[in-house]
Every structure is written in structure tokens, then in C-alpha cells.
């Protein structure tokens, strides 16, 4: 929050469109003045801070099936934009098939905020510190976006452009995020360092997912995503490639961790200095990879 944050929300109009097309058209007709509203936990804070001045908030939480959590044993998991994080955490299908996503959601803020906050909202907010984004990237998430021209899909891998910046255009509403079935035998973990023991925004966040893959030289593939060390959630591609070619071992994980560190581009901010972030990334990455490997072994 800024020091001159207002005591109340500024004036705006609120409405609930009946259909997604109504919503998209309105949003496209009022670029820079209208915004889709889901959980609101990011929007209200910024409006009170004076950073966002939208005249219209368009509530998309409940239209057109956007509040559904659907799991299909062949096609995977679909989370609507209106599905709050507590629902994700509590879902037996998520716990069984996408445990990393539940684990990441659990680290967000507080129980009260998670009653409103949504995974889709976390994605669209596009903070480099977004706790659930790493899991979404690791699970290969694909966004369903509804715009003035109807639906289109966007893989998360190319969705983020910068802090708070995405490929979304005026009129676009992210309606669901879809995750294909995770590869058999996969395991993941999210290690988050905050200031408090629980809760807090991440000083640094480490998402790691691994799975056996006979097509890989090493027999395994890993997906590694770092939060809060770059302008966007950072996929450690070089480290991932290295582990595709190098059989898993504590040494390999150590080396992969160094490659992850080299990919980082942190800045000094109130939460932590670049020097500190760079210094602890390798240890946390190594820890995450070892843990994931052990989880995979226990399963297999």
C-alpha cells in the first residue's frame, strides 16, 4: 500500500452481465476504464492505493459456468475463474491428481483471503510473486479466454509479459484454466520463503515438478519455476534441459540449482535484496529437487 492510500474505494459502477459476450463487449467498449472482477483481492487494494481508477467493475464470477471445478479422468482439470482457492485445496480430485496446486494455494495469504482469491485471478494479476503460478506452469496450464471474437486458448508459458502485464486485451476475460492430466508418477513441491513462518508474500518461491519420462535421456523431466526473482514467474529452462540429459543425483540437482541461480534476475526491493535472493536460490532449488525425486521414488 502507498502512504497516501485512500480511506475508501473510489466511486465506480458495478454490474453483472448476463453472458460472457455482454461482458467482453462492454469491456472492449471501455478500455482502460473497465475491468473484470472475480475475487477482488488485488483490485480493491490497487484502487484504494490510487493505482487503478476503473469506472466500471464487471462481475464475471458467476456467469456462464465460470464457477465450476471440473475433473475428467482423460482430459484433466478445469478451474473456472470463480473457483476460490479454498475450494481448490479442498477438492479431492485436486488433492489426488494435482497436489502441487493445492500445496501452492495453501501458502497464499490467509483462509479468509482464499475464500475470495482465485487461481485464475492469481494468474491474471501476473505478479512475479504469484504463489500458484509456478504450479500452473508446471502442470502445463492453458487459459481459456473469452474476447469480443469469442473463445481462444493461450498456454500459460507465453502468457506473462512483465510484472502485472499479460497478453490479455481489452474485452478479454480469462474464464477457465485447464490442466492436462499430469504424467504418471509425477511429484512436486512448492518451497516458499516469507518473512513470517506462514502467510506473507514470497521473498522467493520455488516450484518443482518431476516425472519419469523414458523419452528423456536421463529418464526424467523436471519443471522448475521461480517466484520473485524476475519480472515474471521464471521458468528455469536451462536447468530443466540439463536435468533432461543428466541422470538424477544429488550432484545433478546441485548443478541444476546453479543453473537456476544463473537464470535469476532479481532486484532490490522492500522484501529482499538481489544479493540475498541470488544467494539462497541454489540451496532452495536443490532442496526442492531432492524432495521431488524422493517423492517420485516413494510413489514408484
Amino acid at each position: 500500500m502507498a502512504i497516501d492510500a485512500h480511506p475508501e474505494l473510489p466511486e465506480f459502477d458495478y454490474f453483472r452481465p448476463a453472458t460472457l459476450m455482454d461482458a467482453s463487449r462492454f469491456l472492449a467498449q471501455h478500455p482502460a476504464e473497465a475491468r473484470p472482477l472475480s475475487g477482488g483481492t488485488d483490485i480493491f487494494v490497487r484502487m484504494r492505493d490510487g493505482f487503478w481508477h476503473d469506472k466500471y467493475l464487471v462481475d464475471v464470477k458467476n456467469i456462464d459456468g465460470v464457477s465450476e471445478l471440473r475433473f475428467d479422468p482423460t482430459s484433466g482439470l478445469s478451474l473456472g475463474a470463480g473457483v476460490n482457492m479454498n475450494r481448490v485445496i479442498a477438492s479431492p480430485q485436486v488433492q489426488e491428481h494435482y497436489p502441487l496446486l493445492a500445496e501452492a494455494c495453501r501458502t497464499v495469504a490467509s483462509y479468509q483471503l482464499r475464500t475470495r482469491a482465485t487461481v485464475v485471478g492469481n494468474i491474471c494479476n501476473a505478479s512475479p510473486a504469484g504463489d500458484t503460478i509456478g504450479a500452473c506452469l508446471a502442470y502445463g496450464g492453458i487459459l481459456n479466454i473469452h474476447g469480443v471474437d469469442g473463445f481462444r486458448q493461450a498456454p500459460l508459458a507465453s502468457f506473462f509479459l512483465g510484472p502485472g502485464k499479460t497478453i490479455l486485451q481489452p474485452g478479454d476475460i480469462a474464464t477457465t484454466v485447464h490442466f492436462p492430466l499430469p504424467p504418471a508418477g509425477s511429484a512436486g513441491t512448492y518451497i516458499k520463503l516469507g518473512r513470517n513462518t506462514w502467510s506473507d508474500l514470497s521473498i522467493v518461491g520455488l516450484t518443482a515438478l518431476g516425472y519419469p519420462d523414458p523419452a528423456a535421456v536421463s529418464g526424467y523431466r523436471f519443471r522448475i519455476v521461480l517466484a520473485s526473482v524476475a519480472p515474471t514467474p521464471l521458468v528455469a529452462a536451462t536447468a530443466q534441459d540439463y536435468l533432461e540429459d543428466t541422470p538424477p543425483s544429488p550432484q545433478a540437482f546441485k548443478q541444476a540449482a546453479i543453473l537456476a541461480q544463473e537464470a535469476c534476475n532479481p532486484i532490490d526491493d522492500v522484501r529482499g535484496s538481489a544479493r540475498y535472493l541470488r544467494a539462497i536460490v541454489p540451496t532452495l532449488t536443490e532442496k526442492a529437487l531432492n524432495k521431488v525425486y524422493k517423492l517420485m521414488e516413494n510413489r514408484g
Partner: protein
Amino acid sequence: MATPTLTKKVPHPVGDSVPRVDAYEKVIGAAQFADDLQFGPGLLYARIKRSHLPHALIKKIDASKALALPGVKAVVTGKDFSGFLGLYLQDRNIFCRDRVRYVGDPVAGVAAISEQIAEQALDLIEVEYEPLPGVFDPEYGASPEAPLLHPDLGKYEVANFIFPEPGTNIANHFRIRKGDIEAAWSQCAAIVERTYRIPHVQHVPIEPHVATAQVDDQGKVTLWGSSQSPFAQRYLIAKALGMSQSDVRVIAPFVGGGFGSKAGVSMEALAVAIATKTRGRPVKLRLTREEEFYTAFVRQGVVTHFKMGCDQDGNLLAMENRFYWDGGAYTEYGVNMTRASGYSSSGPYDVPNVKTDSYCVYTNHPVGGPMRGFGMPEMHVGLEQCIDELAHAIEMDPVQFRKINCVQGGDTLVTGMTMHPTGLSECLAKTAEAIGWGRKDPPSAPNKRRGKGIALMWKAPAMPPNAGSSAKVAMNEDGTVTVSVGGQEIGQGSFTVAAQLAAGALGVPIESVRVIKRLDTDSSPYEWQTVASRLTWSMGNAVVAAAQDARQQILEVVAKAWDENPDDLDIIEGKVISYKTEESISLKNIAIYGIPMPGDQGWVGGPILGRGNFMPTYVTGLDPETGQGPRAVVHYTTGAQAVEVEVDMDTGKVEIIRGAAAFDVGKAINPDMVKAQIEGGFVQGLSTALFEGMQLKEGVLQNPSFVDYRIATSTDVPRDIKAIIVEVGQDDGPWGARGVGEHSMVPTIPAVANAIYDAIGIRVGAPPYSSEKVYLAMLDAGLVE
């Protein structure tokens, strides 16, 4: 004047852990706080235009556009209010007049029909500034190079125990010159010299400040607010407006956390000033949480230089201290922390030679005010670490070193005062035992290191020498007792203590006692302020005196009716009994209507109203050059605290595994509430040790919200906190009691720092001991790579 209660048998419910008298209404949501009060449709809302520059001249203010905004009822600026505010030094205008001195300094105020409109009006007020160079460091501020922030320092009204240096930024310079420090150094076997920079922190009461003011057509003020100090606010605001105290009425409901932030006057005068222009309509001013962080009182930052030495047997011989307090833009309250740290600058130790210079320096930072501990937590951070270092230098156990040196009754203190009996040694011994001192348990994982640390503390109530309390005890027809005090319930349990003391001194069951839970300077008896951990002791004495006064009146009435000697009568469980005849009569009815004489021959008695007061009369001044005097303070509460920590070598994160603390409270009036203070203070201390620090950059606060000013949550608190009560009675406290509200957070930071040192062999320096600070210290020391 209260009868000394120390030697008498302790009557129930004094010493019992009775349930709080204010908790029920709080759990059902009925307890009213200042923002819950309803004022009807006439209520206006205020917002404040604040400086965004840390130091600047005000060239011009144009509020015409703001006044023209529909819904705006008044706009005020400093030109309408020339008076000064200040508890110990009158250096602050209500609104800035010619210059602004910190980011947030109030420049104008708006009252409007809604908070929204008032806020919009702020943007329409045009202020032209001429920026001036700023002072952001107290040592620089004290140097001749620094620009002068208060050129009129010499003209400000000031209490006679504060020593400003006009022509400089030094608002107070307190000196101690005891013994012969230069000779002493040559006799030291070990000397430690260190500097600690303590950052600003904020009280963070969960309830932000709020004040509603109304001025009637005769200029009489009513102020409703979240306030620890209704009487002090009445006094200070009346003075600033050129009124008399009786023209200002302050009404204070429950306070949602104070910790000192709601003492004195901070934002309340703004509401009153605005209300003078709204023709009788009440005006409510609320601080946002962001404003709470940077415009309300903060705990001053300080640069502390320590030098201390001991002989080869571990006896402390000499201490030389220089404290540069970052007083902020106005030091009207902060000057006294400078003094208090000065007269306590030996720490709780017997040191024959002490030289201290404690400076309160103006800077362009937020305003330093009283925060729990009043300079003691900040001072003990470095002091208690230097003590550990000295102990290590002569290869003595830190507990043993403290045992040799800790202050005892009869010692001559740093100001020349004689120390009263104190249980500090007992606190030390019990705390060391409770934490398992000397035993090192294995860490919980291979990447962790364990350590234990201990620290002692002391603190005296810091107040003017004549801070007084008074109380009323009124009887009711149904036999209940109404206790009226001026001390505020800020969560510490003062209303409950008042009820217990009244019940015990009068002889009625606790269930019969009602405490008036809303303070009103028109009807509540005077209380200087709810600060300094003084209520149980000072207000308590007044309550006991009032209850005894009522008791005496009752006994005299019954004695007359029964033709007996009052000395043969007593009040027990709400009944007057005669030890001689074994007759008894309930207090019901007789305490109001009196007792009829036999044969319908008239009546004796009348409505019983007991009154009592207490004011210490023995505090003396101190020599301005040496800080010496017969009696610097009323008394010291002493204590000890120890923690066990684990340091994560991968991240630097410090986890508090367990804690133990013991405080000498003289007499625990309500043992469970004392323990609750010990626990709560420990957690607030732990929070300042690990998380808290206001990040100020060129005078601008970078972390003005809970997002980046972190405080302890439930997950940060160790399960095992042992709270130990030690009781060595205070000669003039109710049944020997003295205060403990502040003390439990004083030693926490150094205890944690000493434990970190024990774990990883590194002194990390100044708090907060964030994972980053600890990790980078380990990295720089080569402990991790």
C-alpha cells in the same frame, strides 16, 4: 493517603486470577470503541492534507477550490491556530504554519459530509513548497553541518528537567557523570566497544487512531477518541487553543490497543481544530492504516554507542554511553525517552563509574513518541549484547556474569539513587533454569543450529515527578460498589485490577464491584495518563485509598448506630460485622439510606462516597551536568528473559523454539493477567526482533502497510513460553505491587541476538534479525557459501 498495605494480610480477591470484567462485552461484539460511537446524521468527516516532502517551507496554500466542492463544510490551515502542543516541550503546532518537517506533517484539514468528499477535497488544496535539505540521521542532525529544523528551539516552553540546546537540533541532552570514568578504564581487564543502530518501529495497535470532536457555540470542546490519556489530552489541547482545561471534555471508550501510541496528543488536536469551524457539527477523523504507520507516533530510532569494561573477576567497572535518538520532526514527547534512557543507562547493573550523553535530535522523520518500554527496549538491544561480549571476553558464563553484577537493593544507582529491594537475581536464576541454561539440545534438522540467549532488564515509570492518580468508590442501594477511575483499559486489565483492589480494600466480593468503563474528564477522577506501567501501582493506590475511605465512613456509621468502636468492626463479603457482638448487617440500603436510630429517633449516615488519591512526593530533580540526585524515579521493575532459537543455515531464518521470562512485580494482583502481559509482551518483542523495522528512505516510509511491515502471527509464536512471577514487594504499592505492562518486551531483542550468537557464533548487529540479515552475515563470515 493510603494506609500502607504491604504488611497486612492480602484479602481476596487481591492476588486471585479473577476473570476480566470487560471481556464478556468484548466477545459478544458489544464493547464500544471510538469508531463505534454513533453521532447521528449531523456527523462530518475529516481528512488531512499532508506534506509529501520531508522538509520544506510552505510558501502558499490555496484552499478555495476545496471549499467550493459541494459537501465540504470547512477547510482549516495552520494560520488559524498559533498555539503549541507538547507534553514536555512545546514544539508542535496543530497544523504546520511556516514549514513542514516530515512526510505526513498536517498542512490543512477538511470537513465534509462524507469521508469520500473530504478525501476528494484534499486534491483540490494547492500547496506551494520550497524544499529544504533534510536531516535523516540523528548523528548528522546533532552536528554543526546539519540544517536547523527548529530555529525557535530556545523559545519553546519546556519542562524543567529537559535540557534543549538552542541553535542546534538537540532537543534534549541528558548527562550522567558518575565516578571517575577515565581512571576506571585503566583497571579493566576487558573492554567492549560497540555501536548499534536501532530502526524505527511502530506500535501497530490493531485499532487505528480515531477522534471525533465537537465545539459548541461557546467554544467548549467535546472530544471522543481512542485515548490512553483523556486528562493529558484535555490539558494539552486546551493549552494549544488558549482555553482552560474545564472547557475541554474528553470521552474515551475502550481502546483497541495503545502501547503508547494513543498517549499524549497526536492526531486528536486536528479533529478539534477542524471542529472549531463547523458550527457545532461533530467531526470525525480516522487514520487509515497507512497513516497509522507514518503519521502517528513511532518508536524513535536510535544510534547507541556503548563502551563498557570489567575487571578480571567480572565486576563491571565502567560504562560510557552515547545515545543519539532520532526524535523525528517534533520531540515534544520523545525528549523524555532521551532522559529516561539516560538515567537508566547503566542497565540493571551495579556500575561505579558511568558517563552517559543521551541526545534527542530533530530529524525529518516521523514523530517519535512513547512506545512500550519508553527507550528501554532500544537501549537494551546493545547493552545486553555488550554484557554478553564482556562475559565471553573473560571466559565467564553470561548468566554468572549477570549474577555478579545485577542490581540489588541498597546499591547506589547510576543517578546516585539508592536501589530499593528487588528480585532481579531471583528473576535471573529462575529464567536461566526455565530455559535449561547450560544444556544444549540437538537441532531439529542437520541444516539448523540451536542456541540460547538471556537478557536482563529494568525500567522505571517515566513521568513528571508529580504525576497523580485519583479514584472514587460509590456505594449503591443494592450493596454493589461503583468504582470510578481515570486510568484507561487498553487491554492490560486495569479495570479488572481496579475492581479487585476496591473489593479487597472494602471487603466486598468481586461480583459486587462495577467499574465505570468509559472515561469522561467531566466525571471521571483525574489520572495523569495510562502509560509507564503506572496504573496498578499509582491508580491502584488511589483506588485502595478510596475504598478504605468508603470503608471507614461505613464503619463509623454502623459504629454510631450500634454504639460500638469502629476498630471492632469489619466488612467481610459485603457485610459489616462486629468482632465484639458478632452482629452483622448487609451493606444493602444502609450504604445509601443510612441506619435508623432505635425508637425512631432519627437516622445516622448517608450516601457513602469514598475518595482517594495518590501522588509520589519524593522524586527529586537531577543535576543537569551530572544527572545525580537523591531520587530520580519512583521505582524500578526488573526482570529477565531467555529464548532458545534455531537458525536455518539454508535461508538464515530464525525460529524461536521456546521462551522463558520472569519479572518482579512486587505483588501480582491478578497472576493470570500478569502472565498474559508477560506472554503478550514477549510476542511483541519477538516480533520487533525478527520482523519489524520502518524502512525510511530520504524521509519516505517504504513499508507503510501490513504487506511489508510484518508483525508476528500465531504461527511465529513458540508453544512453550514460561511466564514466571517474582514478588519482592514495593514499599508504596498496593499490597506491594508495581507495574509489568511494558517490561515484558524490553529484553527480547537482545535475548534473541545473544541466542543467535550462541547458535552460529555471529553477532548480526541491529534488529530486525530477518532471514536475509542473518544469512548475509553468515555468508560474509564464511559460515555458508
